[in-house]
């Protein structure tokens, strides 16, 4: 590599997708450059085109995607006009990509080590033994224990985090000049994520590859990258040094994204989240794409499309009023109304020695072992744990979707340890659930009106006219209009679907609502709005929540009490502040440190609240 220019230079790249509704622009004139040894982050919500950009650089676009303009220079060579054959030589030797789902990148019928050794045999022409030696070295480099034995195992014998390490070692095996990481830790548990991120940090010291890090998670990007680009609807809206962009945003979208994150270590009692307005309406042609959601919009934004303007320092912002945005400083924070949680007197829900054992391949797997806790009226209990910890099984037993092998569930003094359809009408009314996946939670062949009406008719004795009244009011509360009633679920966005699901859970006045990862598949900007909605509804209806989440910031923000599960056991249970401040169990400590270990969190420490409450000062410092 003789030239000192950037390893990757994308200039004015545009990508369109052909769909049933015609051509849809996925990437609109994006330019970026990455030098050797540099890491550039690409942040954006779903649909922003960030994955498409990664695919376009690799020239792996799906069949209906086409590059309609611009060029992608790799060390000066434009990749766009190359044939697949020429491309595969460059891809194989110089560019590597790590995808979100590690199991898709590994061949399940080949031994893990062989797949890495193959890279050495194919590209460096090494013989079997040499290749094996190099591959084992690689497995050791990415931190797999016992690389010699790991070499001979098949992909399914590794955990998700280990598989991702193997994929990373494959990507690094050919010593690429350009490494594209597309959401490499999404879907992994927090503790695993923090290990993988640590691995990237270590590897940065050992390789001089240019890195393009694509993620929806601002904290992760901040911890890895020197420079960052923010994508909105296929367009770069802000670029610059990571620190500058994330501490002094000059674009309203960046600012909004930062403001709506759930800050680490903050509780709902001290601060209200600041959601971005929903992005359900399109901007008029020729206008700024962000105009409909923008807090800084002016008439000019509807008439003209802004370019990327220099906005001080290394930053560039696609906003006519970037100075104004920069002057506005970090997002202001509204104090919460500070209303206290329920008193917790008495027990709404009592769980005694609840137990569930699954039989798998002749072995007993204890999913939940003798769980016991009580939940008072009007309180929010957060259940935290990694995948496989039994938290979802516990919730499903309480909901009556799973029959326990032992123990009791008592709701308002009534024993409801039985399947949901055997429970009394009163018990069914009292307990509702909001599920994780918005797209699975509503029946795709029913209209929203049908879905909500059925819920009311089945659980509420009132007449249809009164039902419609209740629904209209509830629909307003979840910020949906009457026009949504005639829609089918697929015509709604993920956030809207989840709002309907919340309306369904609340339409018959439940006393206890189980929230199973209610926001984990939603974008951050939508997440803030949904969390605010859940808080408002909880205060209005005085309902109790059982909140299941892997996101500790969300749990810390919402929950009054916290229950930590590990391998089916409750390892810690107490008031949220106590658990976060002085965890007693070693596992809880690991979990908490995994979150605070994110380097980026220091950079993105929550801005100080104006009215400091007594509660706030007791908060642990996330840095």
């Amino acid at each position: 590599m003789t030239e000192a220019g950037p390893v990757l230079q994308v200039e004015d790249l545009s990508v369109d997708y052909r769909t049933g509704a015609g051509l849809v622009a996925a990437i609109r004139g994006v330019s970026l450059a990455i030098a050797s040894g540099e890491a550039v982050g690409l942040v954006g919500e779903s649909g922003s085109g960030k994955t498409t950009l990664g695919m376009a650089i690799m020239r792996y676009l799906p069949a209906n995607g086409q590059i309609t303009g611009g060029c992608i220079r790799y060390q000066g060579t434009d990749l766009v006009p190359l044939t697949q054959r020429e491309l595969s030589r460059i891809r194989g030797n110089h560019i590597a990509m790590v995808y979100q789902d590690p199991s898709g990148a590994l061949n399940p019928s080949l031994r893990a080590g062989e797949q890495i050794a193959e890279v050495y045999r194919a590209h460096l022409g090494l013989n079997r033994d040499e290749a094996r030696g190099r591959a084992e070295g690689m497995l050791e480099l990415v931190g797999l224990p016992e690389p010699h034995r790991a070499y001979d195992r098949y992909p399914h014998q590794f955990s998700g985090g280990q598989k991702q390490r193997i994929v990373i070692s494959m990507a690094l095996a050919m010593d690429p000049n350009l490494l594209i990481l597309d959401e490499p830790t999404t879907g992994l548990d927090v503790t695993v994520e923090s290990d993988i991120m640590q691995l990237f940090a270590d590897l940065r010291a050992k390789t001089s590859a240019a890195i393009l890090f694509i993620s929806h998670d601002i904290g992760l990007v901040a911890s890895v990258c020197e420079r960052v680009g923010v994508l909105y609807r296929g367009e770069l809206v802000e670029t610059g040094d990571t620190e500058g962009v994330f501490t002094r945003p000059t674009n309203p979208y960046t600012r909004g994204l930062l403001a709506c994150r759930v800050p680490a270590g903050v509780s709902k009692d001290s601060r209200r989240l600041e959601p971005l307005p929903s992005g359900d309406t399109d901007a008029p042609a020729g206008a700024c794409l962000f105009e409909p959601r923008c807090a800084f919009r002016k008439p000019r934004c509807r008439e003209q499309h802004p370019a990327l303007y220099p906005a001080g320092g290394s930053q560039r912002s696609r906003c006519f009023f970037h100075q104004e945005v920069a002057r506005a400083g970090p997002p202001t924070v509204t104090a919460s109304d500070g209303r206290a949680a329920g008193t917790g007197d008495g027990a709404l829900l009592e769980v005694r020695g609840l137990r569930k054992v699954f039989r798998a391949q002749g072995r007993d797997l204890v999913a939940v072992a003798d769980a016991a806790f009580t939940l008072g009226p009007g309180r929010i209990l957060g259940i935290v744990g990694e995948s496989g910890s039994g938290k979802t099984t516990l919730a499903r037993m309480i909901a009556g979707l799973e029959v326990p092998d032992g123990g009791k569930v008592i709701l308002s003094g009534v024993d409801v340890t039985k399947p949901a359809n055997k429970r009394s009408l009163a018990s069914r009314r009292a307990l509702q659930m909001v599920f994780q996946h918005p797209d699975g939670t509503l029946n795709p062949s029913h209209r929203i009106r049908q879905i909500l009406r059925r819920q009311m008719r089945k659980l509420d004795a009132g007449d249809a006219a009164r039902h419609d009244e209740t629904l209209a009011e509830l629909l307003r509360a979840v910020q949906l209009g009457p026009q949504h009633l005639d829609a089918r679920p697929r015509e709604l966005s993920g956030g809207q679907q989840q709002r309907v699901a919340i309306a369904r859970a609340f339409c018959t006045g439940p006393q206890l609502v189980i929230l199973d990862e209610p926001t984990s598949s939603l974008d951050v900007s939508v997440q803030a709005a949904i969390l605010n909605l859940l808080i408002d509804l909880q205060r209005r209806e005085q309902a109790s929540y059982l909140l299941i989440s892997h996101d500790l910031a969300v749990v810390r923000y919402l929950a009054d009490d916290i229950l930590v599960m590990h391998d089916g056991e409750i390892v810690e249970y107490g008031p949220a502040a106590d658990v976060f401040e002085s965890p007693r169990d070693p596992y809880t400590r690991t979990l908490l440190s995994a979150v605070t270990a994110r380097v980026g969190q220091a950079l993105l420490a929550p801005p100080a609240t104006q009215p400091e409450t007594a509660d706030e000062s007791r908060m642990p410092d996330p840095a």
Partner: protein
Amino acid sequence: MRRVRALRRAPGVTMALLVLLVWVAIAVFWPQLVPYGPTEQELTSRYEPPSAQHWLGTDNLGRDIFSRILAGSRSVLIVSVASTTLGVAIGTAIGLCAAFYRGKVDELLMRSLDLLMAFPIIVIASVVLAMLGPSRLNLVVVIAVMLAPYNARVVRSAVLSWRDRDFVAAARMRGESGAFILFRELLPNIVGTLNVEYTLRLALSIFAVATLSFLGFGIQPPTPDWGLMVSEGRPFYQIAPWVVVAPAAAIASLIVAINVVAQKLRS
């Protein structure tokens, strides 16, 4: 305009639909269309080759083959549509139950179906029909029972991909009955699969009707029936090939047309 373009893109499907439409029209209106009575014998003009008087020639009893083919379309369509409808209904009910209840119900249902599927349709059907005696109703029931297992399997796997969705959990939590969840929550989501299934089974059913009639277990003479006509003409195939070719072509045209439509529905 858009329709014209869609047609040009899939001329095969248009042709197939046209063929089906023509057969259905013939099945309904054949009494008005036939030049001769389908059972009308004219022993003086046996084995006549296709001509202006007899478009498709005559058979061993001097009956007009063209008229017999038109008349035969009705019984084939009625029996195959009836048996397919019945079979798909049974199969769908079994598939829904097996997938929804899982466990022992699933095991019992699916293993019994495996047992049924272990025998070729035609063998079992001919044995059963030989015992029950050939009649249109028996034919419908036997073919329906033989088709159901295949349908049940497809429906079961389609339902399996839906039953663990959260909207089913939500229905269970508000206390819906099993029947409600099966027919109101799950069934509407597999309508697409059912359409493909129905057309594929219909083609199979037509083939079964023709085969059973050919073997003598189906429609009885002198009723005009395609399978029967092939069977009756077989001994004279060498001297009068049209006696066999015409009904065979009719069967083939129907089955191919339905398969083309099924293929289109599937994609």
